[in-house]
């Protein structure tokens, strides 16, 4: 898919989320689903399998997110899968997040953590990242067990790595 088509899809999805009045939650859930899709080969293969009927693939999305996510989020993902663009879903969602942050004059701060952050931690981490980068950031937390412990934050091209995984890697390299 071209970048222009991704932008068109992202803009449309963002418009729907705004019209439904749940932009923040929907955006956050979409972002998490995109990371889940990237890290799960079976799910990605299933949703992009053109051999399966579209209704079956949309049913899988419903089964996976129904009752756990905002209905708007489930509907938007189901719609993209229904158009046969499941393979481009992470790129569309990333563009949606970037577009939303850009409209709010913010930059996406992608934070990976082994455990869920509390709201207080999110608030303080946002302030710390804004102070460190000099930019207003919109925090997007990804639960990633491979981090082991600590956090990894990426704002634009800047990466601030404080994960146990990286420290162990540095220890291995030091040998």
């Amino acid at each position, binding site marked *: 898919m071209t970048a222009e088509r991704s932008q068109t899809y992202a803009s449309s999805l963002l418009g729907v989320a705004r019209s439904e009045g749940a932009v923040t939650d929907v955006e956050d859930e979409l972002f998490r689903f995109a990371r889940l899709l990237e890290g799960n080969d079976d799910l990605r293969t299933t949703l992009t399998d053109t051999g399966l009927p579209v209704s079956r693939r949309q049913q899988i999305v419903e089964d996976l997110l129904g009752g756990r996510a905002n209905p708007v989020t489930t509907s938007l993902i189901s719609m993209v899968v229904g158009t046969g663009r499941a393979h481009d879903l992470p790129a569309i969602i990333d563009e949606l997040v970037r577009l939303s942050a850009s409209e709010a004059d913010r930059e996406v701060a992608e934070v990976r953590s082994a455990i869920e952050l509390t709201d207080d931690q999110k608030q303080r981490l946002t302030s710390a990242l804004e102070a460190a980068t000099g930019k207003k950031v919109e925090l997007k937390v990804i639960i990633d067990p491979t981090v082991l412990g600590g956090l990894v934050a990426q704002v634009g091209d800047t990466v601030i790595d404080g994960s146990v995984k990286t420290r*162990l890697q540095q220890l291995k390299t030091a040998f």
Partner: protein
Amino acid sequence: MRFRTRAMLASSLLAVGLVAFAPHASAQEGEVGPSEAETEEAAHHLEEIAEENGGTHADVECIPILAEGGSVDDCQESPSPILPATDELLWGTLSFLVLFFLMRKFAYPAIKEGMEGRSERIRSDLAAAETAKAEAQGVLDSYRSDLSGAKAEAGRIIEEARQAADALKKDQEARLQTELADVRTRATADIEAAKAQAIADLKGEVAQLAVGAASVVVNKNLDVATQTQLIEDYINQVATKR
């Protein structure tokens, strides 16, 4: 040649003269008897009688001798072994002269021509032989020169071949030494690389084991409180990074 011919002719005439005009011994003796004409006539008459009565030629010849007062023994006297009879001498001389003339006229030029031709042929053969000898000598000299040149060339070629062989041998030895040095260098480098690789692999293995062990320990000790503490430390660290 002409002198030799004249000498032969003069000696022949001298011999004929000596024999023809030599005085008979019996003629010089002064005897008293019948005249010579009477004697001759009587002898002639007796010869005719002898011939009529069947006398032999010897009988006829003996009659004059007897008529001149000789004995029968004189008739049986053998002729001189040195001097031939006068008529034989004359006829012989005449025949000799005729024969000499004929030979001088016809045979001698042919013989002379043949001899001269033969001499000329011998001279030409000798000249040809000399020429051939000179040519042979030239060829021999040429062969000797060529042989000498060939020997020198062969020596030069052998020397060049020996020098080439020596140079090739030296080159091969140098190349061999270079290749040996390269092989040693490569072997040393390979050994060093293998050693370094082994050490690196060992380090990697040790690091893997150590990190694996550390990961296990960390995972076991990463409870919620520790995770929270790590997150707090991270937030504080980022907050102080301005």
